[in-house]
């Protein structure tokens, strides 16, 4: 009974299940997307046609800033007002083994068995074909499965992670006291992508300083933002600020809903996502490095018949020859 007799179910047969909210189908398709299996591409294309309904919230910040604890608190608060949500939690892989210990802080308390919540952990180790790619496929799948909100948690330190939160409708950047020079530690450019700032662990006495530093930084911003960027102090211990954060998320959502802003943001995100996938396709195509066409081009470059740019153009011209 532990072995499926009939072999793998074709991905396209899982699509209807996902659209009907079947967790098993949803979970399987996320795995296949993460594995980068070509077989599931047509299914994901079907799924994509059913996306765009969920509000997508990205949560990022330095390691240990309290993101998972915050996601859990937000998830509980959203459930309390009857909203369903999906969570994609990306955790770092071990640089030595590629393995990972995942998502241990979100699935706690009442959330554990609640059918209105779907929590999926993902290791940052290169999902084959790119982390951003796999995480955003998972977001699509949860969106199509009908969850009202999809939260994505990533550490804001690598470019892939930053690309993921940039794909959100609303981006929350979490800072916390006591992590050393915390404001500096995060990848340059991450603080600037925040629609909402959170200072977590506000129960700690040194939280005030982090709060003041952030306010100061926002005042000194080079380009005045299109909208006032709120800073919310939260404590997952006392529950302080969680309702205020949800209110800010909603307020940002209404802001987006006016003047076509949501459509503009999603258009920008769509372009970034398509370009990113194209880059991956190109990289994968050349990664092998042993195609005869490629070898001929490199030979010509080594013989000084082609300059590096000319060689690159020649390589690009070979792209259409075989489907990737």
């Amino acid at each position, binding site marked *: *009974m*532990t*072995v*499926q007799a009939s*072999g*793998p179910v074709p991905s396209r047969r899982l699509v209807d299940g996902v659209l009907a909210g079947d*967790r*098993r189908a*949803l*979970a*399987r398709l*996320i*795995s296949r997307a*993460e*594995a*980068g*299996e*070509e077989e599931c591409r047509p299914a994901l294309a079907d799924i994509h046609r059913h996306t765009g309904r969920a509000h997508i919230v990205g949560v990022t910040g330095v390691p240990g800033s309290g993101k998972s604890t915050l996601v859990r608190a937000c998830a509980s608060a959203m459930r309390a007002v009857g909203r369903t949500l999906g969570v994609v939690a990306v955790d770092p892989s*071990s640089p*030595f*083994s*590629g*393995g*990972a*210990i*995942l*998502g*241990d802080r979100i*699935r*706690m308390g009442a959330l*554990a*068995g609640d*059918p209105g919540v*779907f*929590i*999926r*952990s993902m*290791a940052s*180790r290169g999902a*084959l*074909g790119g982390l951003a790619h796999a995480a955003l496929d998972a977001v699509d799948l949860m969106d199509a499965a009908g969850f009202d909100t999809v939260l994505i948690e990533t550490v804001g330190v690598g470019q892939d992670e930053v690309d993921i939160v940039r794909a959100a409708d609303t981006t929350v950047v979490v800072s916390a006291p006591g992590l050393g020079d915390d404001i500096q530690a995060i990848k340059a450019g991450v603080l600037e992508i925040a629609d909402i700032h959170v200072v977590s662990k506000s129960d700690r006495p040194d939280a005030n300083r982090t709060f003041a530093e952030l306010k100061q930084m926002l005042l000194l911003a080079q380009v005045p933002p299109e909208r006032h960027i709120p800073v919310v102090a939260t404590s997952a211990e006392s529950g302080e600020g969680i309702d205020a954060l949800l209110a800010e998320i909603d307020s940002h959502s209404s802001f987006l809903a006016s003047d076509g802003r949501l459509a503009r943001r999603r258009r920008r995100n769509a372009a970034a996502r398509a370009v990113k996938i194209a880059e991956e396709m190109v990289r994968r195509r050349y990664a092998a490095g042993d195609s005869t066409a490629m070898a001929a081009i490199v030979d010509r470059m080594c013989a000084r018949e082609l300059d590096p740019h000319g060689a690159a153009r020649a390589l690009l011209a070979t792209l259409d020859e075989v489907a990737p």
Partner: protein
Amino acid sequence: MADQPAIRVLIAKVGLDGHDRGVKIVARCLRDAGMDVIYTGLHKTPEDVVRAAVDEDVDVLGISLLSGAHMTIFPRVIALLEEAGASDIMLVGGGVMPDEDATALRAMGVAELLLQDTPPDAIVAAIRRLVAERGPR
């Protein structure tokens, strides 16, 4: 395409006993063997654990029990997996139990029992073997 996706394992403590040092060590060994490990913490119910195993789409669900409740908890987990249409998730048990219980649990469909003092290497090897035997899904 490139290499195989990592084996996914969910490790849970079900029931009342409050020791998780052992399972945390196992979790780290599996990670160091390149697996993705979801550890759900203490005091989970069979419902919580099966829900998490389904959503996370794990290959293996490992449940460790020291409380002596294995003859009620494992059958319950097997039933819940079946109910969820997830009987292809392989159930592995850890902890302590008498031999005759182990035999009975295997007959019920527990894929493997790695009882107390199984060395980490043997746990890694057993999980790899189970996943290889199952094949693609």
